[in-house]
Structures are given as C-alpha cells and as structure tokens.
C-alpha cells in the first residue's frame, strides 16, 4: 500500500510539474533534506482547491492543538462532504487571503491606491492558485491536522517554502503556520512587485497584469528572470503561461458564493506577529451594547472586559485569561472598537503578575522552579514552532514566563532555558499539570537566571544601579558596581517580566532594577548571582602574566570576563574566569579583536578559565568578550587610547 501511494504521488507530482506548478526533482542543495522529511501520516489529495497532494501531520513542525485553537475556519475537513466543504473552505480562505494581502500592502506602502490594492490581491490569489490551489491545513480522516507538502515533500504550506533552500525559515514556522507562510511568500513577492514597476517589459507601473506576471517570474525563477514571461522559449515558460491563465480566469471565484464574506480570524493581530488572537465577531464593534462579555481590543493596545460601564484591562491580549477568571468566561469573541468611542469610558490596566497570582490552579510563577516530569517539546512560542529538542525528565528549570489559555482547561506553557536556548514547554492543564511538571526547589537549579530571596547578587553596571523606595519608585541611593548584596525579596512585574530585587545597602532598604526577561533578555547586564562566584585559584593577572593590569571586566552568570593591559608592550589580554563548576571542565571562551584586525578566540571545555587571548593594540580600539555555557557577551569597540 505504501508503495502504491508513493507511485501514485510520483506520477501526480510529475503531472503537476508538467502543468507548470512544482516539480519533484531535487538537486545538490544547502540543506540536503530527504523527500518528505519529517512527514508523518502522509495522505494524498486531488488537483482541486484545498486538497492538493500531499499532506503530512503538522506535528512535529507545529502544535496541532494550536492550529485547531486558532485556525479552525481555514482547515479543510475531510470528514465532510467534499463539495460542501470546498465551498465553505474557499469562502473562508478567500476572506482571509483578501484581508491579509491588503493589510500587507498597506503596511508596506500606505499610499497604495485602491487600484493597486485590488491588483495586488488578484496577483496573490493567482500565485496561491499556481502554487497549491489555495491548500494549507487539512483535517484528514485519521483525525490528524495536516499541512500541504508539495514537491516530494520539500514544499511547505500554501506558498511552498522549500526545505532545501529555506530550512532555517521552516524551523522558525514559516511553513506550518499559515500566516507566517503567506507573509513570507508576500515578502518575496512584494520585492518582485516593486521591481516589476520599473521593469523594461512592463509598460507602466499601473499595467497590473504585466506587473503581476513579472513579479511571478521573479518569484518563480529568481531575481534575474523579471521578464521571463515575455520569452516563450524559456525552459520555464509554461510556468508563466500557467500563472497568466490563472490570473485571467480567476477560477477560484467559481467556489466563492460571497466575495464580501468577513473572516472571523483577527487579521491585524496575526499579521503583526501575535500568536494568540481571539476570533472576531461580526457585530458592530462601536456599539457599547455589544461589549459586555466580549474581549475588547483597544486602539491603545490593551485587551479588556467591559464591566460596570468601564474597561478592566490587561496590557496584552495573551493575558486575558486572568480577567476572564475574575469576571467570568467570555461569552463571545473579540471586538476592536474605534478609540473615539472607547475614550469616553474609564480604563483600569491590571498588572499581569498580580492578576494571575493565585488565579490558576498549580501555576508556577516567574522565578519559581519546576521539574520536567516527561520529555516535552521546546517551542519558540506557546504552541509554536518546535525548536528540535525537548526538556529533560528530572531536570529542574526556572520559570521565566508563563502563558495560560482556555478558562476551563487552563492549559499552561512555561518559558525555560534548555540546550542554550529559550523556549516554551506545554505543562498540562488544571487536571493533569503534575503529570507534566512539578514544583521544585530553587536550590536544585543548575542555571539561575533570577536569584530569589536569600541569594546573593553582584551589581554589574560600571555606574552602579539606583536604589529606589519601591520598584521603579523614588530614588533613595546608589549601589556601586561589583557590590555584593543579599536578596530580601524579588518582584516581577510588567509584560516584559521586569525583575526588581529588594536589597539593603548603606543603611537603606529598597529595590534595584535587575533587567527584563522578554523582548530581549537583559538580566545579565544588571546583576549576576553571586553564590555562583566560587573561589577560583587563579586571578586574571596570573592568567595573563606579569605586567598585566585589569582595565575592565564584565560579569556573566558563572564567571567574569576580564580585559587587561600591559602598558610596557601595548598588549591587551582577555581571560574569562570561571566562578561556577570551578575545577571541572566546562564550556568557556574568551575573544579579542583589534579594530581592523581579525578576531582571536580561545574556546573549549576548561576547568578554570579561557584565554589568555592577547593582541597588541596601542592607539587602536578593541572588542573583547567571552562566554560561559550558554551565556555570552561581547563589547563594542572601546579602549581606543
């Protein structure tokens, strides 16, 4: 049976190639992925809208539960009568594509005319037809959520991102995630669309048909093929002819009963990179009578409930669950009324961590430690792209962020550090979360990102850190660099998970800022855990040799990078001194680059330090840095004297 399916698919793929769609042949490529790589439970299809062959499970590329949660309207259901389902599917996909491509063009070119928007939409509809007959997700009869895999499994998603050329992009989700997929396709197509406006074979920028054909020639053949469609003898002319046929015939319209149908997918939300977007309801968003019980997205960015004639909000929609727990389950989807209407009402923004505290059964908060009870896929976002590795059973992790969805099940995801990368793991729901992770002792952590009460910390910035009466409050003092402090308590607040440490210094007790976790972690730029600073039998001066003096240093979790200078010779020296796992070989490095010269690095599994790396640089700037485990740091060019 497997052999038969394979043979059928080969014939079908060859036919598809001859039709000018995509071809099943491979060539030597940067990523030599085999045919149908990571393609589980493959199924066939038919050469019609929504179901071209082949399709493979979304898992392990993405989380099928996430797809069901977010994208139900655009999943082709094989369990429904085919013709009925195709009509429904096309109605929904048309609405999604229509609004998405319009959003994209206006985001890139706000001045685009209505005529250009319409032409851009048509050009993209034809492209999606040419690539995959508008196929992306399917729920097959095996009840698994699948995504289209064309070209012997190399092409991923509606716009067919090839795993031989774009493997890193696919790892980021630009294949399985429908919005990532179509945005990536549009990024390439828009570039070609812009170039086509000035192509010699396009008589004017508003010759939309020829512009679309040129853009497709580039999209299909590469940057040098912008006028390929004018050459009937080009080996790939059939592709251009096929595209033009689709552009002209607009066959998709035969399946769309209402071109003005509104999608329930929140297009701006998904197009702007948000992972969790509540369904949009087709009611008047500006009518306050429609607000109670629904998620109200304010133009200022907050997501709210409308309670007692005022808005109760969280800063980001992803945290709506804590409000829903407080005010009762949302009875509808989301609405995005205009600011001119909502500004007339009062607004209270609830801080995320205070809102969630104690609200969700068994939820571990930021800074707390958990033990992974099983191997769990680590993903770039909650339910998002798999990073290719799992958590380790029995290993203790510090929770760096949490996301909870579904008011009944209370699915929870934790941000952890594994394999040198940050990623989210699924950690079960209210009824089974202890099967996934259990609360652990802080002392069991191998890698501490956020020290807790009782720990010691060391101040990193060379200018010290302000001491304030409350987190982000009034200034009451300054704690100098390198000062070692005992943590009295830790406060996590805000959507970036800002960390504040309560400490005592100079007879005053207050709070110092300790960096943020999200949108670019900066924790190690502010403080490092001091209890990891074990005694190292060597000093930086000893490591570099006679005559060297420390002129700068930068703390990393697990040690410190030192820059030393020997004035008699003009030499700089960099060493990274370990302060954890001292005496045991572990990954550590030191690097030095003189401006205009090459970078020298010493790296390996060393017991005490990496380096010394030395370069002569009198009168030149140097860039110095190093790493310990998964933490690394490098300076800008400095010390130019």
């Amino acid at each position, binding site marked *: 049976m497997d052999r038969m399916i394979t043979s059928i698919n080969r014939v079908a793929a060859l036919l598809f190639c001859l039709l000018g769609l995509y*071809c099943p*042949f491979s*060539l030597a*490529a*940067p990523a030599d992925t085999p045919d149908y790589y990571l393609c589980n439970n493959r199924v066939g299809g038919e050469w019609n809208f929504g179901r071209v062959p082949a399709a493979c499970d979304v898992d392990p590329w993405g989380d099928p539960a996430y797809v069901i949660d977010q994208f139900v309207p655009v999943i082709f259901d094989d369990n429904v009568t085919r013709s009925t389902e195709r009509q429904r599917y096309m109605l929904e996909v048309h609405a999604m594509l229509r609004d998405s491509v319009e959003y994209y063009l206006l*985001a*890139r070119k*706000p001045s685009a005319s209505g005529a250009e928007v319409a032409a851009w939409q048509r050009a993209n509809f034809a492209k999606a037809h040419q690539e995959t007959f508008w196929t992306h997700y399917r729920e097959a009869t095996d009840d698994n959520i699948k995504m289209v895999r064309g070209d012997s499994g190399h092409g991923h998603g509606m716009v067919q991102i090839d795993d031989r050329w774009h493997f*890193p992009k696919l790892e980021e989700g630009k294949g399985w995630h429908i919005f990532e997929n179509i945005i990536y396709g549009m*990024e390439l197509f828009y*570039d070609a669309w*812009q170039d086509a406006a000035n192509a010699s074979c396009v008589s004017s920028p508003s010759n939309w048909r020829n512009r679309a054909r040129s853009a497709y020639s580039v999209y*299909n*053949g*590469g*940057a*040098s*093929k912008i006028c390929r469609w004018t050459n009937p003898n080009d*080996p790939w002319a059939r592709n251009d002819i096929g595209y033009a046929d689709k552009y002209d015939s607009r066959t998709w319209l035969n399946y769309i009963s209402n071109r003005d149908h509104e999608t329930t997918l929140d297009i*701006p*939300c998904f197009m*702007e*990179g*948000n992972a969790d977007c509540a369904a949009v309801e087709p009611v008047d968003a500006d009518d306050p009578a429609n607000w109670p019980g629904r998620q109200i997205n304010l*133009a*200022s*960015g907050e997501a709210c409930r409308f309670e007692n004639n005022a808005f109760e909000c969280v800063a*980001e929609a992803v945290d709506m669950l804590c409000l829903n727990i407080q005010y009762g389950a949302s009875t509808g989807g989301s609405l995005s009324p205009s600011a001119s209407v909502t500004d007339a009402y009062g607004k209270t923004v609830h801080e995320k961590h205070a809102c969630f505290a104690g609200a969700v059964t068994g939820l571990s908060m930021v800074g707390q430690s958990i033990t992974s009870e099983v191997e769990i896929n680590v993903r770039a976002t909650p339910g998002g792209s798999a990073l290719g590795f799992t958590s380790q059973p029995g290993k203790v992790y510090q929770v760096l962020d949490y996301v909870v969805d579904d008011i009944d099940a209370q699915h929870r995801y934790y941000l952890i550090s594994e394999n040198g990368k940050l990623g989210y793991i699924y950690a079960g729901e209210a009824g089974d979360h202890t099967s996934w992770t259990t609360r652990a002792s802080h002392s069991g952590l191998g890698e501490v990102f956020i020290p807790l009460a009782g720990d010691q910390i060391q101040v990193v*910035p060379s*200018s*010290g*850190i*302000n001491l304030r009466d409350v987190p982000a409050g009034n200034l009451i003092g*300054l704690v100098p660099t390198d000062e070692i402090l005992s943590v009295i308590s830790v406060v996590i607040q805000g*959507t*970036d998970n800002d960390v504040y440490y309560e400490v005592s210094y100079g007879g005053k007790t207050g709070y110092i800022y300790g960096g943020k976790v*999200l*949108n*670019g972690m*900066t924790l190690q730029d502010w403080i490092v855990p001091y209890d990891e600073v074990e005694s190292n*039998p*060597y000093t930086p001066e*000893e490591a570099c*040799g*006679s005559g060297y003096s420390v002129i700068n240093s930068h703390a990393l979790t697990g040690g410190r990078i030192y820059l030393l200078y020997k004035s008699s*010779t003009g030499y700089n020296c960099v060493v990274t001194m370990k302060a954890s796992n001292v*005496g045991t070989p572990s990954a550590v490095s030191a690097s030095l680059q003189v*401006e*205009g*010269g*090459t970078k020298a690095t*010493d790296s390996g599994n*060393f*017991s*005490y*330090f990496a380096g010394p790396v*030395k*370069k*002569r640089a009198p009168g030149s700037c140097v860039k110095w840095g190093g790493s310990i485990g998964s933490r690394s740091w490098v300076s*800008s060019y400095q010390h130019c004297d």
Partner: protein
Amino acid sequence: MKYLLSAVMLALVGALLLTAEFGQQQAPAPATAEEKPGEADRPASLSGEPTPQELTLDQPRVQRQSLDDQSRQERGLLHRQIVELANCHQTYSCPQNLSDPRASDILQGKMLAEKLRAYADFHRENDYFDGESAEMARAFLDHPDGFVQEAAIDLMSMQAPNRDNALVLIEALESSYDAKIVNQAMKELQRYPDLQPQVDQLLAQSLQTGSLFVAQEVALNILPHLSPQNLQAFEEVAEKLPQNSQRAKALKSNLREFRLRQSGG
C-alpha cells in the same frame, strides 16, 4: 541591474589592483596556544614571570603590508573566479540546473557565497586586507541572494570600518526582507557612529514600512543603536506603529530599557 554594475566595477578595480606592485612580506608571529591549568599542571607563567611561550605571544603581531608572489597569485585566482561567476549572465556562462525554476540562480548564489568565503578566509589567514578586499565586500552587499549577502557582510566586518561600504549596506537594507541579514548588518553598523543619522533613518523606515519580519527583528535588536540623540525620534515611531503589534511592543520595551540604563535603573 544594480548588482551587475557593481560586479563590473569590481572587475575593473580588481584588474587595476592585480597589476600593482607589492612590497616584501613581513611574516606574522605564529600564534602559540598556552596550556591552561586544569588541563595540565599549572604553568610557570601563572606564578609570575612570563614563560618563553608567552614571550612568543607577546611579539608584535603587525598586519601584513603586502603579499608574497604566491599569495598574490592565489588571491588573484579567487578574485577572477568571483568576477567570472558574478558576471556570468553577461558572458552566458552561468552554472545551469534546470531541475527547478530557481535552481540555476540558487546554484550561482551558492557558488558565489562559497568563493566569497574562501576569499575572506584567505585574507583572514594572511591577516591582510586592503582596498581590493574592501571593494570585494562592497560589490556583494546588495546581492539578491541572502547567502552571498551574508558572506559579503562577514567579509566587511573583518576589515577596518569603511564608510563607502557602510553606505552601500544601508542602501541595500532599505528593501531587505531577510531578518537574519538585517540582524547581522545591525551589529556591523555599530562600528559606524558617524553614520548613525543614516542608520537611524534606515531603522525608522524598517520599523514603519519595512518587511514585517524585518521590522520585528529591528525592534528586538535596536537597543545598541539607541542614544539620547535619537530616543525621542524612536519614541515617536513607536507611537505610530499598530499598538497591538509585536514590533511596537518590542520597540517600546527596548526604549524603556534604554531609559532605565540612562537613569541608572
């Protein structure tokens, strides 16, 4: 077309440089690895006076001023191969692969990137960079193939700051949709504080009307480019962005972090 012109310019400049006279080679001091404690017994150097090994390391390592004949020939060969490959459309000599519509372009890009990396390796190993190597990087900074662009930026970053190259890079990034390239370029452009106004303009444009993926990448990595001089301008950009967008959230987050750094936390 812009790229092809650059390649022609590269050929001309290269031909001139290949005919130039070069001085005598000054051999670089060999790099000697020091034994570290923990891997063996504690070396004598750590107790005080430098060891002979350390003295070897301390010999002045001066960047070469010229190449010997053999190295010049080696570089010339690499140079010619790159130029021929870059101009292959004009000479109808491009590598062909008709198994896929993009295969030929991808093959050409792959070969170009490999040659550029070999060219960069040659210069790094010889610790020798000059006007030709700067020009070589410049010629490919706006190449449509991301692998070639990446190799060109790597070659640029090995060398002393070059204002002309930076301006070409900034222009190339204006229409880029490759977030990885933009991230790499943002790090490189930190070496050009004199060009910060141009970089600011590029970043502001990328955030507002650039590729959606690039805009997110810029917002996430903008912190090293923020300064008291441009803070207000980027705050205004943040307010113009869709407020529920990841680019707005990341930009606002990093603006706040910058203000905290300025104020001492």
